[in-house]
């Protein structure tokens, strides 16, 4: 193609783009689905949590607050020793502090924490960004199933 003067070529580009139509999405009306892996919000599966504090301690921001107490449970088998069980009283994540690094999800040994790609939880009040365990538990329904991996990946490796 013969070289047009740059000034005219530029006009051509903007004109072509104008005819091509928009690539943007009118957000509140239509939504783009974030990828499965997107680190949107952390969901808590409360029954899996043993309040072991690992996530809280490994958090670079110290933004996970956990409180719990131990309770005696009757032994599983007749005549056994009574078990002591950790009961979770409080599990809060302060999303105003969270860096979304995902270390807590990784260190959790009991599969109690999961990433969900949900992102619409902005708040007008910064204090409302502290999600308690009920709220974190509600996110659990949005956690996607693990996706298949690309060719060449070692199979059977999950989170």
């Amino acid at each position, binding site marked *: 193609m013969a070289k047009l003067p740059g*000034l005219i070529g*530029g*006009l051509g*580009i*903007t*004109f072509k*783009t*104008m005819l*091509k*139509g*928009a*690539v*943007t999405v*009118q957000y509140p009306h239509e939504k783009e689905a974030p990828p499965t892996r997107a680190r949107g919000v952390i969901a808590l599966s409360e029954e899996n949590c043993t309040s072991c504090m690992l996530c809280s301690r490994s958090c670079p921001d110290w933004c996970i607050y956990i409180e719990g107490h131990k309770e005696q449970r009757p032994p599983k088998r007749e005549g056994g020793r009574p078990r002591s069980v950790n009961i979770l009283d409080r599990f809060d994540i302060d999303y105003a502090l969270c860096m979304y690094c995902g270390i807590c999800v990784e260190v959790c040994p009991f599969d109690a924490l999961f990433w969900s790609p949900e992102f619409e939880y902005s708040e007008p009040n910064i204090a409302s960004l502290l999600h308690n365990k009920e709220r974190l538990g509600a996110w659990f329904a949005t956690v996607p199933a693990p996706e298949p991996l690309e060719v060449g990946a070692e199979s059977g490796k999950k989170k």
Partner: protein
Amino acid sequence: MNALAVEIPWGVLLAIKAVVILAVVPLGALVLGYTFLLKMMSHMQSRLGPMDPGGFHGWFQLIGDGIKFLQKEDIVPDEADRRVFALAPTVVVISTFLIFVVIPAGPRLQVANLDVGVFYALAVSSLSVIGVLMAGWASANKFALIGALRAAAQLIAYELPLLLAVVGVVIQAGTMSLQGIVSAQQDGAIFGWSGIGNPFILTQFVGFLLFLIAAQAELTQTPFDMPVAESELVAGYMVEYTGFRFLFFFIGEFGTATAFAALAATLFLGGWSIPGVHGTAADLLGPLVLVLKLMAVAFLMFWVRFTYPRLREDQLQALAWKVLIPIALVNVIITAIIKVAI
């Protein structure tokens, strides 16, 4: 000079004219702002622009913005020269209003058919420089002052090519009256063929380009928007303005764009005229035709605005003095020679 066949009392006519002029500037600003700033620019940038306000393609956006500006607090900097600061936007807007006085929208649809119409339009358009300098100086802000100085230097420099570009048209039409120029184009002929009249864009194409370039500079639009360069001077002389005063500047900017587009349409595209349509029919169709031509010119101007980077201050001065003015002078001479020869 009454607009319709019925006899209208002098005072009422004056009032009607005043209302039309008062309405046409904000309306023009609104239409151009919406069509080009919000919609055309957005599409050129692969987006849609505002879609929600008003339901249909965000047509209410600018009106809403205007209402928002009216509600805003009127902030005047402490160090500012309050009276001058307050007066500056008005001066800019008044200069815009005055241009529309002579722009004809039909054979009888004109506020005043001045003998020196073109000259008048260009003279009053230069008034806005005063407003710009006032704004920049009174804001007590260095960015504003630099912006105003740049604007003034630029507006003065480009007044010349603007005038000279028009001179060619004036020579060809043999009149400075805008009505005269329009009818010269409507009734003219190209090599004896009068099918489309003789729009001066054909014979004065150089003049048309010069006019567009100079108008772009007068409007301080890209590539000549150094005075308001948002990436360095933030908003130049407008930096301290808020609320309805800023709204005035906005109306001034797009209103003047409308005015210059209308002027260009009148001077080079035949204004309200459609070949062969005269009399009352032209009065009825004229405004529509003018608006269509005006929008076509404005499209060109904004297309350039949204595509190009801006020239540096010294470069745009050099462009005006070393390129545009010589070309314009040559154009005038050639036109004059041809006119005399024929």
